[in-house]
């Protein structure tokens, strides 16, 4: 029997069924052609074992209008639907026991063929952590490595902003794995970077278009980030943070987890420091990551710091600031300069992008 609609739209419709888990979706997709499965569900044929009555009823209560609305959204928003037997489906997900049977993507799926490094971390990151994520994102992109991340606030978005800051044909494309539907931008202030990623890399989600970022979707998203990454770098994470769930998923899959050391006592670094204590490899520069990927790091550096060079007094101040946030009074005391002079120097450094100020606490942005 020939299907009325293209097969991908049946796959998308199956992925949009209510009460779905990734396991049930995989069973459905393995049961036959998506169009046949769709027809069987609606004809009341309960062909799978281990699926509840209630679930069958909920599935059967859907109609072709669900299929049409999902398909229309996909066409409108230029969203592609990939199933596991599609050649564009990410190869690293194929062998994964918990892989999503259907994924929605926007952008260039060639990105999945690059070397891939996941960069994750807390949303409430320090300026210094964000700066590190930005820098390493840019350096990896300059080395042709794709940066995988979740487009959340903080570390996630900074790593992609860094990757996108590198121009050129050979730059590694960003891969963003998000929890909501690809047409539901979350958080809203990331709308622009969301578009940039779709333009120069690829956006991926297992949620069909229109789905809101419900909390349970984030751990699910994390397992895809872990599965897509060859190496996972944790920049800053609290010990209970969501990043730690990505780390657990990565460890299940034997993905190398690396962590960026942080100041002891800094809440934002508790989790990443715990990882180091437990034996994860440290990342202090991009070279560590490139070595873990077995890439030649000697020629890789096409990225250079574009910030304006420092004058002697500015460099001295930056040196004195050290690690960790400090108040202006503290810095003035350390430099034995007046607060006014310090404020002027810090202002100059901030304009050049060497220091950041959050709520009156100053941090040096040096990797």
């Amino acid at each position, binding site marked *: 029997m020939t299907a009325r609609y293209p097969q991908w739209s049946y796959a998308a419709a199956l992925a949009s069924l209510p009460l779905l888990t990734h396991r049930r979706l995989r069973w459905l997709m393995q049961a036959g052609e998506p169009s046949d499965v769709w027809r069987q569900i609606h004809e009341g044929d309960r062909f799978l074992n281990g699926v509840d009555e209630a679930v069958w009823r909920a599935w059967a209560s859907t109609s072709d209008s669900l299929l049409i609305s999902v398909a229309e959204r996909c066409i409108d928003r230029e969203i592609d639907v990939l199933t596991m037997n599609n050649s564009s489906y990410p190869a690293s997900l194929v062998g994964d026991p918990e892989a999503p049977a259907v994924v929605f993507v926007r952008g260039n799926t060639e990105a999945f063929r690059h070397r891939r490094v996941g960069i994750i971390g807390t949303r409430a990151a320090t300026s210094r952590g964000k700066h590190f994520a930005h820098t390493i994102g840019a350096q990896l992109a300059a080395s042709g490595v794709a940066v995988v991340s979740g487009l959340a606030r903080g570390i996630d978005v900074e790593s992609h902003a860094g990757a996108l800051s590198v121009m050129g044909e050979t730059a590694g494309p960003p891969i963003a794995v998000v929890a909501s539907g690809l047409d539901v931008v979350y958080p809203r202030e990331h709308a622009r970077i969301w578009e940039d990623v779709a333009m120069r890399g690829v956006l991926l989600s297992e949620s069909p278009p229109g789905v809101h970022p419900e909390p349970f979707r984030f751990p699910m998203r994390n397992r895809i980030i872990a599965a897509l990454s060859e190496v996972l770098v944790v920049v800053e994470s609290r010990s209970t943070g969501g990043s730690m769930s990505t780390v657990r998923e990565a460890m299940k899959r034997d993905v190398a987890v690396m962590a960026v050391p942080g100041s002891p006592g800094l809440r934002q670094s508790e989790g990443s420091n715990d990882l180091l204590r437990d034996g994860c490899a440290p990342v202090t520069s991009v070279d560590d990551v490139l070595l873990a990927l077995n890439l030649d790091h000697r020629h890789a550096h096409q990225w250079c710091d574009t910030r304006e060079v420092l004058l002697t007094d500015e460099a001295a101040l930056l040196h004195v600031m050290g690690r960790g946030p400090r108040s*202006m*009074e503290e810095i003035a005391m350390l430099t034995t300069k007046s*607060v006014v002079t310090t404020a002027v120097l810090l202002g100059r450094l901030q304009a050049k992008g060497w220091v950041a100020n959050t709520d009156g606490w100053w941090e040096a942005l040096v990797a």
Partner: protein
Amino acid sequence: MFAAVTSSTLLATMGSPIVVEAHVGQGIPAFTVVGLPDEGCRESRDRVRAAMLSSDLEWPTKRVTINLAGGGERRGGAGLDLAIAVGLLVATGVLSQQAVEGKAFVAELGLDGSLRPTAGMAPLVSAVGDHEVVVAATAVAEASLARAPRVRPVHTLKQLVEVLKAEEAWPHVDVPEPQVVMDEIADMADVRGQEMARLAMEVAAAGFHHVLLMGPPGAGKSMLARRLPGLLPRLTDEQAFRVAMTRSAAGMPMSAVIASSAPYRAPHHTVSMIGMVGGGSSHLRPGELTLASDGVLFLDEMGEFAPTVLDALRQPLEEGVVRLSRANGSVTMPAKCLLVAATNPCPCGVSSPMACTCTPIAKQRYLRRFSGPLLDRFDLRVELQRPSTSELTSTSKGESSAAIAERVQRVHELCLARQGCVNSSLSADALEEVAPLHDEALNVLRTHLDGGRLTGRGYHRIRRVARTLADLHHSDGPIGSEWVHLALAMRAKLHTGHGEMR
């Protein structure tokens, strides 16, 4: 049968003269007050009657009409009691009209016939200052603030009648000469550390820039704000007089003392809209904004104030006056105050970023309590940290208020001579003229504008603050980059969410 007696009534912070007409004629015995009297004035009848009977004066069993002649506003106040009583006595022939010519009567009557002070004695007496003003002897100190040349304090109604009948001389009560004094204001020297905040207070005083202090509890926000009036120049005679009038109109207890230091008001955060901007149903009362005029209005824990109350500050802060319009009239009250607000940087209020437990969203939500336009009013937004142990225990004192006030005074004089206003009121056009930027300074501002760290609104505010900083440091000519950097350091960026920044 007919009499006209002068008195005065209170309109917000100002007194206005009024003629109380009394007519006693044939008819059914009655007592009516016409001419838009307020509730308090209608009660006068009973007080006046009791006072007259207690003073062995006859209450006319005739038809009595009292008219409060004057404009269209609702008038009243207990201060008209005495004028009504005297009007009745003239109308019934107990006193002659000549006896009350050139005199004004401002006092409330007690049931025992004694004269009592009423709220706003100073502006009430001031409004009829060219008359011989009869006031209660107990109100003489407050009445003296009006600087009326002929104040006649009297103890009782009976005594007044005897004086007006020329049977007795005016009782001897000393009318004190108002003393001009400085308030006791805590000294800046007590503030340990906080160099930036101290400088910000100096700039605030010198350029009349509104300040927002952000810092954890215990950083010294209130301490700094309390000391700000001590940095402001002494009030001019005219200002001090206005402040005294306003305080008296608000019913604050007054003595024969005129404060020449800038007023300081720190209303609690439960303050109502009317408490803040003024108003009220019986008579319009000045609010905290007006009481703080020519001085400092300090809002501690700004986030706890009702958002409507905070937003009501915006227009008065811009114009320097509060305009209140009610169904029965409108008034304008001065509101030229220096606003100092204090807030915690985030809901948890912990001092260090290592220990703060707030999510970025919670922080943004906290800051979103303040409307953007209000945040824009603050030229200076300073972040404070708790002073370190060594600063707290240090025995060396900071610079004294007097030394700072001297510099502030000089800048005020300089600004008045140069542009006729304080730096914070400079218009964008005037800025080009009196505060041109050095090339380097312009470049700094450009990078900040391009980098999205400065908004168009912030640009002009930074330039005004930079002008004040340069003035304080005797720097003439185009404004150098160091002042711009410093001004930027004193304007903390606030992330209010959705990538928006103020």
